[in-house]
């Protein structure tokens, strides 16, 4: 307690030159409150909620025939009908959630599975978005044809970047991908001939199936939902396979993994490429939804945001990634008037606090019993 008070005072002092005497009090008192987190079992409530939920499910399965299936169907139904009750703005936010959940899942393959910290993840998103934008504007290639092309472009860049760097230590990868993110943004900004510089590309076609054109947020919601289902399916399949185990092995102890005959380099490259592909698809979707892309959508801020989602939800966890994306998109949106610009500040604090108090995240991935 005394200790806490001392450090609170200390923080007040060092915040003085920046914040002045009054605002420093806020900052210091935030710390003071945070310092008690140590004593509370911080977000234990959420994981225990998940435990209870799992228990409830298995009980339901015992009591009612097909209980598990019924609960699942109810859950899926509720996801499907949610947008019917929401207005345009809310649906738009849900679509954003979907895009970020897709990104968070993708980044999770690199970070959560293989332990590759990618700090410039948004570059692959940008590559996907611009690939679709250019193909759509210049060649009028339809969205659904472009999605695999966007993914392919992201994979190509991922491999080109990954090949030289992945054999190095993990933290170099972090910095190099950060640099790559920055290079991508600068190139998009300066290569006027192709990318139209800071103004970006306008008039990107919306997705369409036959004569049906996706235009309202509700339409996009269902589209991103399909993408997400596919992503979750892929994620799940990978996770519970020989590859998934090998990735965890690499993440935990590369030397031991090699001694098991795991070719670390090529598996890391694979994780990196799949991860990039997810971002490429998300990027194409983003371009199609916004109908306009410009470099300012692809800053380091976005990369950090996605990373924060992964960390908050729990590395390697599907519900975690989705929860993380939802929290970091919806909560600031609800409290927009209160948070204002301090959104990012809170993300920073969330990342620090999570690593210190709950590094496994809010909805940690549990190894299955085989």
């Amino acid at each position: 307690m005394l200790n806490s008070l001392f450090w609170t005072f200390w923080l007040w002092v060092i915040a003085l030159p920046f914040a002045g005497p009054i605002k420093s009090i806020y900052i210091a008192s935030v710390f003071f409150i945070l310092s008690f987190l140590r004593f509370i079992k911080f977000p234990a409530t959420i994981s225990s909620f998940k435990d209870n939920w799992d228990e409830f499910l298995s009980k339901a399965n015992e009591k009612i025939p097909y209980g598990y299936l019924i609960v699942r169907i109810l859950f899926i139904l509720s996801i499907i009908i949610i947008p019917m009750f929401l207005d345009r703005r809310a649906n738009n936010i849900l679509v954003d959630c979907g895009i970020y959940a897709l990104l968070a899942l993708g980044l999770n393959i690199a970070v959560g599975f293989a332990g590759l910290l990618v700090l410039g993840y948004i570059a692959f998103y940008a590559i996907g978005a611009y690939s679709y934008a250019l193909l759509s504007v210049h060649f009028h290639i339809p969205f659904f044809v472009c999605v695999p092309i966007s993914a392919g472009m992201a994979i190509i860049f991922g491999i080109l970047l990954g090949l030289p760097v992945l054999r190095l230590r993990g933290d170099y990868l972090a910095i190099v991908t950060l640099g790559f993110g920055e290079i991508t943004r600068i190139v998009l900004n300066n290569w006027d001939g192709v990318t139209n510089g800071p103004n970006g590309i306008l008039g990107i076609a919306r997705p369409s199936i036959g004569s049906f054109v996706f235009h309202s947020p509700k339409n996009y919601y269902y589209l991103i939902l399909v993408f997400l289902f596919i992503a979750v399916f892929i994620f799940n399949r990978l996770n519970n396979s020989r590859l998934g185990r090998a990735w965890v092995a690499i993440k935990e102890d590369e030397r031991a993994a090699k001694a098991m005959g795991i070719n670390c380099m090529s598996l890391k490259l694979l994780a990196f490429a799949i991860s990039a592909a997810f971002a490429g698809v998300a990027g194409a979707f983003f371009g199609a939804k916004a109908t306009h892309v410009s470099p300012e959508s692809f800053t380091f801020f976005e990369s950090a945001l996605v990373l924060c989602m992964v960390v908050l939800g729990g590395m390697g966890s599907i519900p975690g990634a989705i929860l993380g994306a939802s929290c970091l998109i919806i909560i600031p949106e609800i409290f927009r008037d209160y948070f204002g610009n301090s959104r990012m500040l809170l993300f920073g604090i969330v990342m620090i606090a999570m690593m210190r108090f709950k590094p496994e995240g809010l909805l940690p991935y549990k190894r299955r019993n085989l």
Partner: protein
Amino acid sequence: MKILETKQVSKHFGGIKAIEKLDISINKGEIAGLIGPNGAGKTTFFNCISGVYPLTHGKILYKDKLISNLRADEIATLGLARTFQGIRLFTSLTVLENVMVGRYSRTKCGLWGALIKPKWAREEEDSVKEKAGAYLEFVGLKDYRNELAKNLPYGCQRKLEIARAIASEPELLLLDEPAAGMNPSEVKELICLIKKIRDTGVTVLIIEHHMRMIMEICEKIIALNYGVKISEGTPLEVSNDQKVIEAYLGRENA
């Protein structure tokens, strides 16, 4: 028949000559021991064999095939498994999954297999699970199957490391101080286990400071000091070798 042969192998770290011109051969089917005082270069030698370090000089032949230019994972795939001096388990995987990772080099389900899960992939996954379970039973860890590896008691972690190594059906198994930190009854179990492994046809090369154990199970012993082979022979020969006694006790006491 020789399963492993090293020719003039040297490994230097800057000025330190951790291994110097080592010639060693291990016969198929035997349990061989590698001994030497701390810092003699035993672990470094294992790391050279298993491809962790590139050699400074020399050649390593495994079943008459040159392996010293291969990557660690390629060497492991050839059927050369090892354990580590400091235990290196995949701590956040379950015990069973650790052993399943050990089957990696004997299975082949790749990206498409994982995504599409055709019949052969499902069968492979089932057989991996089944075999991994069998190896757990073999080392006596059946009850810990779904425990996380990091929650195992120390002695069991050692056994798990062995189970993980033999899950790859190696022909040559390198054990780096498997008895370190074990109590006498655990050591006894370990001796049985190693003999059992040998009886399945695996050649075992074992580093150990536990002399009683070495004397009991090894057919051949190689003694190192300062990276140089100082003695080689049956346990009796090596334990009476003046050079070995000096290396352990110092010249004065000998």
